[in-house]
């Protein structure tokens, strides 16, 4: 038997996920929102790896999924922060509420 039950991992992952969701919803700054999303992706990764370890440890699928999530996170951060920089250069603000160019 593994020393730590699977439900512990899932609980921690759920907590990380919820904190990340809270961060993404409550931040005014786009960079803060991105950091919240990073937390969510990490929670997903913990889940993937925990299920891999406890359910199908003979294959490596869990790690493959986690690696792909990590690369998606990297791509998302690069493009998302580039958008923040482009917007900041134009509007001198990174607060998402003020990004209403499309409304006017």
């Amino acid at each position, binding site marked *: 038997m593994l020393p730590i039950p*699977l439900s512990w991992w899932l609980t*921690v992952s759920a907590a*990380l996920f919820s904190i990340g969701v809270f961060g993404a919803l409550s931040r005014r700054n786009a960079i*803060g929102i991105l*950091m919240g999303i990073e937390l969510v992706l990490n929670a997903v990764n913990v889940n993937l790896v925990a299920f891999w370890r406890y359910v199908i440890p003979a294959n*490596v699928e869990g790690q*493959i999924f986690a690696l792909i999530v990590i690369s998606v996170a990297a791509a998302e951060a690069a493009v998302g922060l580039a958008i*923040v920089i482009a917007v900041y250069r134009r509007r001198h603000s990174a607060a998402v509420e003020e990004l209403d160019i499309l409304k006017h």
Partner: protein
Amino acid sequence: MPFEIPFVQIVWWAMTACAIGGAIGVVSSNNLFHSALFLVLSLFGVAGYYVLLSAGFLAVVQLMVYIGAIVILVLFAIMFSRRMMKPTEDEMNRQWLVSVIVAAALFSWLIVVVNSVSWPVTSAAPTADTVLQLGLAFLGSYLIPFLVVGVLLSAALIGAIFLAREKVEAEEI
């Protein structure tokens, strides 16, 4: 081994303190720079989790990609878009109370789901040479995802350079 099991659990609790404490710091700190440093703590905790889950390769990748690269990117973006050490206005937006409720509801629902399903757990040992297996898989049965990642990264690179670049004239190679 009477020593082993509590030892692993001690490490687990330490890593949980890092991961969850860091995550709370990320969302609650009023200084974005501090938020990013708390993110490092949280990511470090998750890397520790990977070690406990015998995914050493992922743990090192987590450190290398997240702390070595993504956090640096985030810090650069913060430095670009913020004046230093002036927590000018409140970092929370008007819907923060709603967000707390949503997050709490989500968490309790997830806990209910986690505890109501009996997961088919095995206690088999994980594959020995994970990295080798990963290499074989990426260029074997997971070839398409591998190439899609290549396309994704290439698109992200081009898109991000296009967005972040200051307008300068083209250059001859």
